[in-house]
C-alpha cells in the first residue's frame, strides 16, 4: 500500500534521513522503532509532506506523492495522528472530530463515522462537549486518533502515541491500536516504547541515525540479541 524508496530528507543543511526504504502492505500493522533523534518523526513528516524530500520517492497505492501538497495527502487515504496529539484545544471533542471530517467527501459520512469513533472510544462520547484542551493525556490521544479516523483513511500514521503518558495508559493506548488494526485499518506507527509496541504490531523496522538497521516480524525482533541488549536492557 505504502512504499518508500531511498528517501532522504532533512531540515535545511541538516540531513535526518539517509536512503530509507520500507513498505507497508494493506491490512498490516507496521512499527518504526528506534531511539530519540533517529529520524522517526521526520520519516512520518516526509510521508505526510510536511517536509520536502531531498531524494527518493513515496508512493501510496502505486501513486507517487511527489507533487501532492500537504493538505491533499489526506485525500490519498493517509491520515496522521501527529506527535503530541496537536488537538484543537479550544474546540470541543465533537468539533475536533468534525474537523477530522473536513473534506467534503468525509463530511457526508460524518454521523456514521462519529458513531464508529464513539463505539471505539465510549469515553469520547461522554466527553463530547468538553474542550479538547481539558482532556487528560490518554483521552487526548483517543481524541486525536478519533479525529484521524474521521476522514475514513486507508492508512493511519501514528506518531509516538505513548509520548508523555503514564505506563498504564500506554498499555491501554496500545490495546486501542490493536483494535484499530483488527478493524481492518492499515497502520504505520512510530514509537520509542519498543517493548510495548512490538506486542501489538505485525512487523517492525529499526531506525538508527536516519538509516534502517534491521527489520523483521515483531516476535523475531523481540527475540533478537541486538534489540534485547540495546533497547530492552536484557
Amino acid at each position, binding site marked *: 500500500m505504502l512504499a518508500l524508496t531511498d528517501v532522504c530528507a532533512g531540515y535545511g543543511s541538516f540531513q535526518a534521513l539517509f536512503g530509507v526504504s520500507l513498505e507497508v502492505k494493506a491490512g498490516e500493522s507496521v512499527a518504526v522503532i528506534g531511539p530519540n533523534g533517529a529520524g522517526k518523526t521526520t520519516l512520518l513528516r516526509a510521508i505526510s509532506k510536511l517536509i520536502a524530500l531531498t531524494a527518493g520517492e513515496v508512493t501510496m497505492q502505486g501513486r507517487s506523492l511527489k507533487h501532492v501538497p*500537504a493538505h491533499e495527502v*489526506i*485525500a490519498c487515504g493517509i491520515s496522521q495522528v*501527529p506527535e503530541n496529539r496537536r*488537538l484543537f484545544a*479550544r474546540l470541543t471533542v465533537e468539533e475536533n472530530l468534525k474537523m477530522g471530517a*473536513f473534506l467534503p467527501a468525509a463530511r457526508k459520512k460524518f454521523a456514521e463515522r462519529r458513531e464508529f469513533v464513539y463505539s471505539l472510544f465510549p469515553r469520547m462520547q461522554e466527553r463530547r462537549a468538553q474542550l479538547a484542551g481539558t482532556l487528560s493525556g490518554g483521552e487526548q490521544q483517543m481524541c486525536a486518533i478519533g479525529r484521524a479516523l474521521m*476522514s475514513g483513511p486507508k492508512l493511519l500514521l501514528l506518531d509516538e502515541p505513548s509520548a508523555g503518558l503514564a505506563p498504564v495508559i500506554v498499555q491501554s493506548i496500545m490495546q486501542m491500536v490493536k483494535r484499530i488494526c483488527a478493524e481492518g485499518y492499515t497502520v504505520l506507527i512510530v514509537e520509542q516504547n519498543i517493548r510495548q509496541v512490538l506486542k501489538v504490531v505485525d512487523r517492525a523496522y529499526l531506525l538508527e541515525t536516519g538509516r534502517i538497521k534491521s527489520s523483521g516480524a515483531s516476535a523475531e525482533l523481540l527475540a533478537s540479541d541486538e534489540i534485547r541488549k540495546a533497547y530492552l536492557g536484557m
Partner: protein
Amino acid sequence: MKYLLLALLAGTPFYGIGNYPLHLVIMCLLWGYVYTSWSIMGRLGLVSFGHGSFLGIGAYSVVMLWNHFGVSPWIGAVVGVVLSAVVAVIIGFPCFRFKIVGHYFALVTLALSEVTRLIIVALRDQTGGSLGATPNTALAQGNAWSFGALQFSDKIVWFYAILAVWLAGLWVWAKVDRGMTRLALEAISHEEEAAASIGINVTRSKLFVTLISAVMTSIGGALYAQYQLYINPETVSGISISLQMVFGVIAGGMYVMLGPTVGAVFTLLLAEGLRLALGDAFKQFPALDLAIYGLMLVLFIIHMPKGILGTAQEAWGRASRPH
C-alpha cells in the same frame, strides 16, 4: 428583540436629534462596518496592522478617478476593490505560503499601511499630499444630490446607505462565522500543521478571509471619502488609523458579531470626549489620542481580552444561569 432594536435604529433620523448627533451615528455605523471588516480576519488569528492601506486605496481610488478623469465613484469603488484585492494577494500569498504568522505577519502589514501613506504623500501633485483631497462637487446648480457622483447633501440618505452597508457587513461576518472557513481558520490558528494534515489548504483559507476583509475595508474607504467629501493620508491610511481599527475591535470584542460596532462607538465617543475635555491642549499634542489608544489597548488586552461586549455578554450569561 433584535428586529425591534434595528427598527429603533432605523428611525434615528426622525427623532429630531439634529445634524451633529446624526453625523455621529453615521460615523459609528461606518466605522462599525470597517471594524467588522477587519475582525473577519483579525479574530481568526490574522492580526493585520495594514488595513489602513485598504481603506486608503478605496478612498483615493474614488476621489482620484473622479477628480482627474471624471470617472463615477461607483466605478472608482470597483477599481478600489480590485486594487485592494491585488495588494492583499501580493502581501498575503507570500506570507501564508512561507508561514509568516503572528507577530511577523503583524509587522509585515504594519509596513504595508505606512508604505501606502507614504506613497499617497509622495504623489502630492496628484493626491494633494498631506493636505488631502476633496472630490469635485457635482451639486453646483442647486442639486441636492447626484446619484452618479455618489454625492448627497442630505444626511438621511447617507444614514440609510451606510446602515445597509453595515448590515451587509454583519451578514458577511455571520456567514463566515457559520461556515467551514471559520472552523478551518480556527484550526489553523491553533495548530497549523495539524490543520494541513486533516486536509485544510492553509494558504488558500487564509487568503480567502484576507480578500473578503480587504475588499470590505476598501468599500468602507470609498464610502468614507464620499460621505466626508474630504480625505487625507492620515485619516484613511498609515499606522494611526490601522492601530485605531485594531484597538476598536479589541475594545469592543473580537469574537462577537456586534463587538466591532461597539468598539466603533467606544472609540468615537473617546475621541469626541477627548476633544471636548482637552480642548486646545488637544491641538498642541496631535498624537495625544494615539498615545491614549495605545495605553488603553494594553489595558484592554490585560484586563478585558474579550472586549466590552464580550465581557458584558459573559457577565449576563453568568447572571441569568440558575444556581
